[in-house]
């Protein structure tokens, strides 16, 4: 279709727009849009850019807090005050759909995109994390996806030169067709040095910098807003190609150009490319732009205007510069051998006017394209799914306790969800920057020292999506609580979260109910922990036509801070003879545990025990224990239950444990249940009194489990295994399945 040809409802439909949206566009323009203009609306009003099906509920999340410097929706990423003039910018984003089709490039460009969101604000990225969900690891396609995605993340992040310090990997059949790839990045800057994604000042020049524009990723944002089907392979050009070397140069040049003081505003080009950055910056600055598309450096000839506008070619930035200071900007990009081309200028009228060889090819109002402006907002209907009530009927007494719990223990250690993820994590450079404290001090959250200060960042991503599926509201509150627990156990103070909301098709009422319920649970927990939501990303349509939606997966990326890095805490037992205590209570609960799901193969059960107030109180006492230097280690009880927690604390130094079970609960629930609100700590014998005294100042339950042993894993005097044999299995599960190469 010719770019200037007038469009019809049929074309609108082909571009993913709804009939009422097409009508609205005609109303806004006062005429029928041409193909270029309609393409602009189709990407800007896609779920990916407009949040049209989610914003109503996202607005209910708590986003205020004393540390907030840039709140959700205000900038490319949230920014929080860490004190002493230091701020942190952090965000998580999904790249699920591209990774399902082209795992290597899909995942790589996800890493590139999230990092640009950080440094476009003037922050230097210091740590990356990721959350990955795959289907059955024994399927050949899953293995292909894992290998491609992990290599994609590694190759991009490693060359970019920022350490990947943490994350999670989870397997379940629900992700067979549609894996989830969520990438998170955190950066540091000085308060006051932030650059905004804005544009103003009539006549100020608009520059495009970085890579040339090609035909890759066109309609990528619209593609992300569809179900994955057999025809998705036809969308392959929607997947972008990454170049981490260009990204590294762009990082250095961007931070350098900000220092000139000549920059008015800057935004990276990710989803929906030039058009999105033009629209969002102009709407924010309440100005317009005149852009000459023929001036954009192009990678190939004969690109149509809509292709130039929508291209999601990576490693590009849009910069608005103070008029008269162009040369200062140019010299920086020349130094780094990057393109820096003026493609237009700021105008007064609030419109985006696109020209090709001085011919006007598209003319649209900026504000009507963006969230908070004219982009549509929908209230979707939702309905509790039938399975929810079914899950509640679960009774632990219907599950026969195995005669030999050692078999169940070995099953869990050998399970890909529990076993070491080193096959994955060792492919990431986790140490570049020489600031990763947790390399040699393993902790529940990753700790990154902030150079030049005594502070450290504590970072984690958490979401047990099996819990969220079982009970979205409680499950999502648990995800927040687990993140806060991990930060706390590492010695940090929870500060704020970013979320990556991976759900199925929002037009399915049962799916939308999962979304609404999860948001409610997240709100409750974020209010309790005083961790505002600083932004993130919504990814709907994570389902296939055959298998239905994936588990609702609201991944919670939490940022914490340690004002004094000396207050860090590690998870490993330090010495045989130290006492092992459980803080929190044993429960007769195996609901939604890995043990119930994969050993007994029972999938219908509620979320595990969880009480938000108890959880919060427990965290406060753990903080006191760490600050008072009473404990030697702290490790939260999570996937796999207490037995796995004990093993994980024992393995780093080749130690073991000798514990007694609790008569009040079933032994399988004691060992493998995943009731929330529990932390395992070890205490030197001569500090026992001090520990007990401190615990007595709170209402939080605790119990003595036993002692750290030289290497035998003993429960009620029965040898379950030695630490050496357990570690040998634990460390090599993924290697056996995926191979050495």
């Amino acid at each position, binding site marked *: 279709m010719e770019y200037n040809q007038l469009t019809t409802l049929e074309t609108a439909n082909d571009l993913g727009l709804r009939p009422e949206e097409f009508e609205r566009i005609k109303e806004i323009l006062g005429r029928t849009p041409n193909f270029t203009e309609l393409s602009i609306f189709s990407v800007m009003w896609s779920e990916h850019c407009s949040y049209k099906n989610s914003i109503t509920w996202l607005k209910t999340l708590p986003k205020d807090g004393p540390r907030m410097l840039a709140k959700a929706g205000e900038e490319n990423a949230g920014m929080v005050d860490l004190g002493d003039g230091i701020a942190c910018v952090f965000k998580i984003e999904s790249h699920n759909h591209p990774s399902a089709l082209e795992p290597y490039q899909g995942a790589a460009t996800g890493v590139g995109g999230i990092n640009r969101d950080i440094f476009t604000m003037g922050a230097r990225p210091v740590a990356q994390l990721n959350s990955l969900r795959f289907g059955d690891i024994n399927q050949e396609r899953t293995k292909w996806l894992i290998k491609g995605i992990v*290599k994609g993340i*590694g*190759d991009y992040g*490693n*060359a*970019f*030169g920022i350490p990947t310090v943490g994350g999670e990997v989870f397997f379940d059949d629900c992700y067979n067709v549609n894996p989830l790839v969520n990438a998170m990045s955190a950066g540091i800057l000085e308060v006051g040095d932030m650059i905004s994604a804005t544009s103003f000042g009539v006549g100020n020049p608009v520059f495009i910098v970085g890579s040339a524009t090609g035909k890759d990723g066109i309609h990528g944002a619209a593609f992300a807003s569809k179900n994955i089907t057999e025809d998705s392979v036809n969308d392959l050009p929607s997947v972008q190609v990454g*170049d*981490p*070397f*260009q990204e*590294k*140069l762009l990082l250095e040049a961007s931070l350098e150009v900000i220092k000139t003081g000549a920059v008015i505003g800057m935004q990276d080009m990710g989803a929906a490319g030039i058009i999105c950055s033009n629209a969002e910056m102009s709407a924010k600055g309440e100005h317009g732009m005149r852009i000459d598309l023929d001036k954009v450096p192009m990678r190939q000839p004969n690109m149509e205007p809509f292709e130039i506008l929508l291209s999601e070619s990576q490693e590009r930035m849009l910069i608005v510069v103070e008029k008269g200071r162009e040369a200062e900007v140019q010299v920086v990009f020349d130094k*780094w*051998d990057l393109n820096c081309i003026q493609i237009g200028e700021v105008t007064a009228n609030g419109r985006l006017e696109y020209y090709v060889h001085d011919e006007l090819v598209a003319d649209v109002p900026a504000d009507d394209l963006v969230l908070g402006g004219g982009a549509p907002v929908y209230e979707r209907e939702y309905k509790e799914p039938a399975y929810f009530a079914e899950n509640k009927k679960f009774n632990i007494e219907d599950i026969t306790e195995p005669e030999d719990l050692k078999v169940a223990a070995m099953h869990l250690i050998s399970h890909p969800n529990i076993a070491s993820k*080193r096959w994955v994590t*060792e*492919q*990431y*450079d*986790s*140490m*570049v*920057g*020489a*600031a*990763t*404290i947790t*390399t*040699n*001090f393993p902790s529940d959250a990753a700790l990154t*020292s902030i*150079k030049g200060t005594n502070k450290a960042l504590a970072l984690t991503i958490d979401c047990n999506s099996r819990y969220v599926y079982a009970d979205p509201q409680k499950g999502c509150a648990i995800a927040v609580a687990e993140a806060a627990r991990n930060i706390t156990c590492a010695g940090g103070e929870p500060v704020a979260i970013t979320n990556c909301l991976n759900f199925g098709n929002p037009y399915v009422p049962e799916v939308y109910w999962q979304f609404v319920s999860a948001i409610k649970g997240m709100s409750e927990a974020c209010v309790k922990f005083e961790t505002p939501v600083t932004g993130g990303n919504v990814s709907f349509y994570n389902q296939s036509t055959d298998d239905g939606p994936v588990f609702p997966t609201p991944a919670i990326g939490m940022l914490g801070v340690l004002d004094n*890095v000396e207050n860090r805490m590690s998870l490993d037992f330090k010495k045989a003879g130290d006492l092992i205590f459980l803080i929190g209570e044993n429960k007769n609960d195996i609901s939604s545990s890995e043990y119930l799901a994969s050993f007994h193969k029972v999938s219908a059960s509620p979320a595990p025990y969880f009480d938000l107030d108890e959880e919060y109180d427990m965290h406060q006492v753990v903080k006191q224990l760490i600050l008072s230097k009473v404990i030697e280690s702290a490790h939260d009880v999570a996937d796999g239950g207490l037995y796995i927690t004990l093993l994980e604390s024992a393995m780093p130094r080749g130690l073991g444990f000798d514990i007694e079970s609790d008569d009040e609960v079933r032994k399988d629930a004691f060992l493998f249940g995943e009731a929330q609100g529990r932390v395992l700590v070890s205490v030197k014998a001569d500090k026992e009194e001090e520990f007990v005294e401190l615990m007595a100042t709170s209402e939080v339950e605790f119990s003595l489990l036993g002692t750290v042993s030289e290497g035998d894993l003993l429960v009620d005097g029965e040898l379950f295994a030695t630490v050496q044999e357990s570690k040998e299995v634990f460390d090599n599960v993924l290697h056996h399945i995926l191979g*050495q*190469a």
Partner: protein
Amino acid sequence: MKFGVVVFPGSNCDQDSVDVLGNILGQEVVKLWHKDHDLQQCDFIILPGGFSFGDYLRSGAIARFSPIMQEVIQFANKGGYVMGICNGFQILAEAGLVPGALLHNDHRKFNCKNIFLKPQTLDSLVTNQLGLNKALKIPVAHGEGNYFADADTLKMLNDQDQILFKYCDEAGNISLESNPNGSIQNIAGVCNKQRNVFGLMPHPERAADSLLGNQDGLGIFESILKTVDA
């Protein structure tokens, strides 16, 4: 003593080396831009880790042609001290300043973890303060660290005591299992015949700060200072 750390486009361990030399060891240290021809009277040049020019061809194959490298090569040929770490080692090998080559890891994956190193000689500027029996815990982070040299070169390396480090286990045993990348004879680092150019794949600069709980890499830098200052 004045150190210069070369910054290629794509270098990403340059600042880590500067921090160790400047902040931890209190040395004078400057960054040298790859487009320059001026070594700024430095006494010791470091080629840092990273992905120079993206390493899309062969690691280090393009960086060796950078303007500054012409000066580094001249400097080295006149006996000036040069050390390449990781990508820096790859660049030195490409430039022919140290013998051998760095191939893709035998398992074909990038690999980042703590490994153990055993110094093979004390007769070098970078190892003289180390012991021959203690295994040093130092991180590796590379996809192309599989050291290779032909039989004649290996004989020369051994005969002339040019092997600086070998991969070993925690107890110091040089074994197949402790070799992280397939390097021939477990070789992790070598020097040239004149013993003024040094290359190693592991990252001692990542094991120098007490905050990170591992200072096994500091001895390598201290060796340099001890000898040169003396």
